[in-house]
């Protein structure tokens, strides 16, 4: 079923929307949750919560890209769950490594953020991503949006793991420089 038709089912409050979503995007959402949480059970729960969340948010939302909309919910729910479960210990899925890598871009200090500042920062990151060649942008997002293991990224993009790690390292450094030059003290 086309995404537009699935969204229409949500708008019609037709429960087939959930079934169609699960059928088309269940695997996609689960892979995101699994990358972040590492556990099948937790991932399943997050995916089910994603359907519920989608049911509650469409309407009023009408997603432009249904996959990303659902993926974003899954990512958010999974990361929340990760934070609650791992408040005192390391562990989980790939996310611990992903966060360690991202730590190179930030100071680690507490910062008070308002919604406006956050949106501005997102726009700056978007602008930075626009400067990257398509493949590097894809690699960056596969790692830091989807939390996909380096091994899988390397396999998919036909690169060595070391090459992927070096590429990511350079992108992170450039991101930090890019944001610092624009006045962001992360």
């Amino acid at each position, binding site marked *: 079923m086309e995404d537009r038709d699935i969204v229409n089912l949500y708008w019609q409050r037709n429960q087939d929307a959930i079934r169609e979503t699960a059928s088309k995007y269940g695997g996609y959402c689960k892979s995101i949750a699994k990358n972040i949480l590492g556990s099948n059970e937790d991932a399943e729960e997050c995916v089910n919560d994603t359907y519920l969340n989608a049911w509650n948010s469409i309407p009023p939302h009408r997603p432009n*890209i249904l996959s*990303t909309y659902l993926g974003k919910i899954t990512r958010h729910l999974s990361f929340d769950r990760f934070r609650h479960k791992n408040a005192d210990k390391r562990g989980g899925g790939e996310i611990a490594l992903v*966060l360690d890598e991202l730590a190179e871009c930030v100071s*680690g200090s507490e*910062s008070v*953020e308002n919604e406006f500042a*956050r949106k501005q920062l997102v726009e700056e990151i978007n602008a930075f991503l626009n400067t990257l060649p398509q493949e590097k942008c*894809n690699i960056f997002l596969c790692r830091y949006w989807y939390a996909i293991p380096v091994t899988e990224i390397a396999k998919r993009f036909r690169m060595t793991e070391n090459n992927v790690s070096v590429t990511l390292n350079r992108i992170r450094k450039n991101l930090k420089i890019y944001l610092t030059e624009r006045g962001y003290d992360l």
Partner: protein
Amino acid sequence: MKKENLFDIIGDVDEQKVATAGRAMTEKKKSRPVWFKWTAMAACLCLMLVAFPIIQNFSNTQEVDTIELGEVLEYSAERVERALIGEYRGNILHSWGEPDFVLTDTSDKYYLDEDDSKYIILYYDNEGYITEFTFGED
């Protein structure tokens, strides 16, 4: 900022970019059907069959294209024939200049060594292309 905040914020980047990255990661590259491989191999074979004689001829042409009169002795009769007769005829003739003897309207004699002992006689058709040659010794 904490690393968790940055991870959160990255979650809000342009959804089109996210979708593109997701597709790049998950879409299977279309595998070519079996017939494609065999067709490609057959096409390669045909190309080789067609290209080989052409390349060989080209290489032969290149090989004899610079043949000089003084070099004829160094060439086998077969190679001289390839150079002077058939599809290569006319390639060499004019670079040899005037013959030592004009025998008839359609044949010339060129001496090949300084002693004027070994010679080659070239026979032409009406259009001036070499049709035959003979080696000889005085």
